[in-house]
């Protein structure tokens, strides 16, 4: 009930925004649900299905392991023709199991300290053998989560190990924390790569390559996906303690890491083993806690994105999309918004047998935009093709954007249809990073392909190692529909060689964009100024504030009404938006990132609105705070 109300409210906001953008004659814009449906799988009332792992089985059953250590097998999870699913408890008593795989008749489950093979040998539907395939040390720190297994083609398994949290990510408390390891058939662990902080999601792709998702944190300016090869160091220094072990594939030590706050791309020039992410997922703009990812190998059953990846974000309860290409032998690519609105924190995803995605969710103690504490849903393509940027390829002088439908020529040729810029993050031991070095990437011209499925953007100021944002809000298709998602972020680690486009337009001089440090416009925001709620709602959405905050309910971050109770001045709120103090909100698992890219005038308008919430009810100073 709460959820549907919330969706209605956000739709209300959308329609306000869109009425301003489009004249009445324009078609009603499509929404994500017009193409991809979220189907909820009913869970019996007494089951706390805090899904940590999902394993679809060949017979159509789906196994789910939970943070409470249970493994449930769901019969009829597709609920065909409105039928109901049926749940059987296959195993229980495991320790916070966060990964599950089906392999040759058994389920393989990762507990905190053990990879366990669960087998039902007497055909009663319950595991009777809990075989310890491999086990590893733990310190007892809660943040030492263990994930996997993911099988490769040889039947070997990969696991990832979080570092401990002791005010920063610490790997030394137990062996191989902060590592990707391979479990060989005899149960021994082979360390593969380190630098992992909170690697909740990873996959072995169709080329046999391991890709893993990282959460913003110390040494990690923003969420990202990195291709891990043997001997790689992915950035977080916690796991480097174990490179002294004889079987470590790298010898790098923490002392070798420059902790200067320069971009990771610069640091990687000095540290050979430091692996750059293939794709950055800009914090809050895309997601806030990268979770699972799966490659689309459905041959069209899931839509037009074969070979791409669907990537989930636990905190924002949503799916994103990622395209990869290899430039000079290394993966890089782009990310795109895809589908919001899952019921809880989307941790785990696996393909169902029909080309839909099972999404397992939990948010207990972690928070998420979806308000349910747990759940399982299915993401299903309904056969209609959305108008999307299908792919973005790096070019010697810009990007080639591929679309799922032909673009309207006039809109595509209009340079005003595009807004382009690039930015990056600091590489340092601190938690997260503000956006830094943001600059415009002026568009010199566009070339539209004959079939109008490709637009080549010829740009100045391409910078290696930077995230290049492509906003194409002016584009429409033949129907007059705008893009379903008009933004993508391409991580340009390398620029391919090739023929330059022939454009005669004069180059525009580069001007840095630093809205945060620009003096505020003359329009003065006085603290008792009347509040334009509609305008604020649009700003909250535009700057992705609503990804983590709601007016009066706890989402990932505190509700605005709680912020109001702190009695900050508008200027103090501005300061906190630019320089967040997570220690002010110790009950919230996810720390806020610095939002210096949001213009000061916008923040002050929002701050003024927040403080207007406080005026409605005088805070009771003596009320005991609910520290749930």
């Amino acid at each position: 009930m709460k959820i549907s109300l919330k969706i209605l409210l956000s739709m209300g906001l959308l329609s306000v925004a869109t009425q301003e953008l489009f004249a009445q004659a324009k078609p009603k814009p499509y929404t994500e649900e017009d193409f991809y449906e979220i189907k909820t799988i009913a869970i019996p009332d007494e089951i706390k299905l805090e899904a940590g792992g999902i394993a679809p089985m060949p017979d159509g059953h789906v196994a789910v392991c939970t943070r409470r250590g249970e493994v449930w097998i769901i019969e009829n999870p597709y609920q065909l023709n409105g039928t109901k699913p049926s749940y059987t408890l296959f195993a229980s008593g495991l320790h916070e199991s966060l990964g599950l795989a089906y392999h040759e008749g058994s389920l393989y489950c990762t507990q905190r300290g053990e990879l366990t093979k669960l087998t039902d040998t007497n055909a009663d539907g319950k595991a009777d053998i809990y075989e310890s395939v491999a086990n590893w040390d733990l310190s007892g720190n809660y943040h030492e989560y263990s994930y996997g297994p993911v099988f490769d083609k040889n039947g070997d398994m990969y696991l990832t190990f979080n570092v401990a949290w002791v005010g920063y990510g610490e790997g030394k408390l137990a062996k191989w924390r902060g590592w990707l390891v391979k479990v060989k058939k005899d149960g021994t662990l082979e360390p593969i790569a380190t630098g992992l902080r909170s690697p909740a999601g990873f996959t072995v792709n169709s080329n046999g390559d391991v890709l893993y998702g990282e959460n913003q944190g110390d040494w990690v300016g923003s969420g990202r996906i990195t291709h891990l090869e043997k001997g790689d160091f992915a950035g977080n220094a916690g796991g480097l303690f174990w490179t002294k072990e004889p079987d470590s594939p790298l010898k790098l030590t923490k002392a070798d890491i420059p902790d200067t706050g320069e971009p990771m791309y610069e640091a990687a020039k000095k540290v050979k083993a430091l692996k750059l992410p293939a794709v950055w997922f800009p914090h809050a703009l895309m997601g806030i806690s990268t979770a699972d990812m799966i490659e689309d190998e459905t041959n069209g059953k899931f839509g037009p994105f074969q070979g791409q990846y669907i990537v989930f974000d636990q905190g924002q309860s949503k799916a994103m999309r990622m395209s990869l290409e290899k430039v000079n032998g290394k993966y890089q690519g782009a990310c795109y918004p895809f589908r919001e609105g899952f019921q809880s924190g989307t941790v785990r995803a696996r393909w169902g047998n029909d080309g839909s995605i099972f999404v397992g969710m939990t948010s207990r103690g972690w928070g998420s935009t979806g308000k349910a504490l747990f759940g399982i849903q299915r993401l299903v393509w309904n056969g209609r093709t959305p108008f999307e940027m299908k792919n973005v390829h790096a070019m010697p002088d810009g990007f080639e954007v591929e679309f799922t439908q032909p673009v309207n020529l006039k809109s595509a040729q209009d340079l005003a249809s595009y807004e382009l810029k690039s930015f990056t993050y600091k590489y340092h031991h601190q938690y997260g990073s503000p956006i830094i070095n943001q600059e415009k990437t002026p568009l010199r011209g566009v070339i539209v392909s004959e079939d109008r499925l490709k637009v080549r953007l010829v740009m100045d100021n391409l910078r290696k190692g930077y995230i290049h944002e492509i906003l194409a809000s002016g584009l429409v298709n033949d129907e007059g529909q705008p893009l379903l998602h008009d933004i993508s972020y391409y991580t340009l680690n390398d620029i391919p060689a090739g023929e330059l486009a022939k454009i005669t337009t004069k180059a525009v001089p580069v001007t840095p964009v630093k809205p945060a440090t620009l003096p505020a416009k003359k329009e003065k925001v006085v603290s008792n100024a009347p509040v334009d709620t509609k305008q604020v709602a649009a700003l909250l959405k535009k700057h992705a504030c609503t990804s983590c905050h709601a007016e009066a309910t706890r989402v990932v971050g505190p509700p605005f009404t709680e912020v109001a109770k702190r009695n900050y001045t508008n200027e103090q709120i501005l300061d906190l938006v630019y320089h967040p103090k997570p220690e002010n909100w110790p009950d919230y698992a996810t720390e806020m990132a610095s939002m210096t890219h949001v213009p000061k005038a916008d923040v002050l308008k929002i701050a003024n609105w927040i403080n207007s919430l406080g005026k409605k009810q005088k805070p009771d100073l003596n009320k005991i705070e609910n520290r749930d």
Partner: protein
Amino acid sequence: MKKLLFLLFPISAFAQTEIPLNDLGAFKNPSTNWTIVGGISGDYQATTLTSTEGKGILYGTAKGAKYQANDDLFFKLEHGDIKLSLDFMIPKGSNSGVYLQGRYEVQILDSWLKKEINDGDCGAIYHRWDEARGAGNEGYEGHAPRQNAVKAPGLWNHLEIDFKAPTFDASGKKLTNARFNKVTLNGIIIHENIELLGVTRGAVSPKEAATGPIRIQGDHGPVAFKNIKYEVFDKAIATFSPTTYEYYQGKYASLQTGNAKPVKTGTAAQPTMKLAEAKADFLLKFQGKIIIPETDNYTFTTNWTGTGALLIDNDTITKGDHWYSENVQGTKKLSAGEHTYTLIHAKDFGWGPKALGCFIERIGTAKQGITERTSLPEPEATPLIEVKVGQEPVLQRSFVFYGDKKKTHAISVGLPYGLNYSYDLNQGGYLQLWRGKFLDATQMWHDRGEPQTSSPMGTTVNSNDKFPLAFLANESAAFPDTLTKSDLKYKGYRLQKYDFAGQQIAFPDFMYEYKGIKVKDTSLPMANNEGISRRLSFDAGSDSKLYALLAEGITITNIGNNRFAVDNQQYYVQVNASETNKVIVRESNGKKQLLMPLAGLKELSYQLIF
């Protein structure tokens, strides 16, 4: 990020004064049923206890005729409010009780193995009695314990009682009822904050009074006591003058206000957080006088979220950055008369509840608030997450505290009918065994579950976390403390069906490889649920030097029939020795060990009874 120091709660002694048990001098005219002995032991199947001469144990032999009221034992100590702690032991079928003020009984009874318990069972606050209520309805207002927490006959039980006496006005009219603030049996809270509307059955008098003697029932059956300690709350309390206060706004993490001017000053009846208007960025300073009634050592407790300090006569008693649920304590000897206190608290961040508490106590007084009652918020309400056991065993892995160490590869197993154990999978050893409710998983499953621990909910016996088998050069060679992964490989467990209570029930067989031999370790409930039967099977060669360590403790007493009482009668172990495989009691590192050579055997079974 600001770091607040989190202290473990200081564990203060529950009761301070010990009743000497060198003789019966502490008691009023004890009958010949009562004697002082040096040692005592029992057997869970025996209806008598066996004593040895000496001192330190109070033994009610019940050798006289039953139900002779003069066999009850009265302490010379007259008490009102009291904290009492003691150890007691009873043989099979016995019955006794501890009457506070001679009037309010906490029942002692052999309720071992009883599944349904009521207000007559061990630990119960016994019912009241009124013939006028009619036959069969005389008993009323009794309180059954929350769960059956008593141990097997012949083992020591530990009982703690926190009792509040009734109060009366000058005319003798009762103002407040008697109350059991808390009763704990073998570490399990069995009552908390229970008011008694009148005396329980068998009281010395139906009339309630401000004081009375402790009385032990001595005419129903044998019972032994030791470690009887108490604290009575009869000493004069401190009084306070009104306080002056200064309220500053701003950040004062150093507690130094320098030249800053307070926003507000004044006087108040008591220091209180209510005087701080801001949620954050303030400093409150209170100064007042404490009138100390008698020269003594006084303990002060402070609580705040943020930083602060308490000074008595300019001596710093407590200080530092703390979370408000921490009880930060300091003690100072104070002479009778007037003393000054200065209580300063600053909060320079927005999170966390505003809280300020300051308390004074000494032995013989309850904790008195110097601060106003609402100045310190109550702790958060966290729901219990309990793992329950039904007809089949329940297994649950978690971290498990073993002493102050976390065992990271531990599993707790709840067997049907209330026997449970925690087991270290890395070592193949019991961490603890318990009887009663299974598992409290709150610290693992509430919120993020940062401790990731679960804990027993019943009467617990600690074990040694040792793999029970070892190859030893000879029978005096040391038994290994811990095993490495190369010596002991945990292979997993199989849920194997066993006959139990006429049904086929699956119990876990834990599988190991120990130095090349395969070992299977299974724990089953004993037939009548007296304890846990451990079955070990191993494929060692018949001439091997394999030994089993069956028990370890400060004492191991052979009580006959291949049965031993372990660790000052904390539990029994029943072994299956033979002429070729005799058990040995030996000394090792200051502890007694019960060792059995396993040459020629392929399996071993022994029972732990508690």
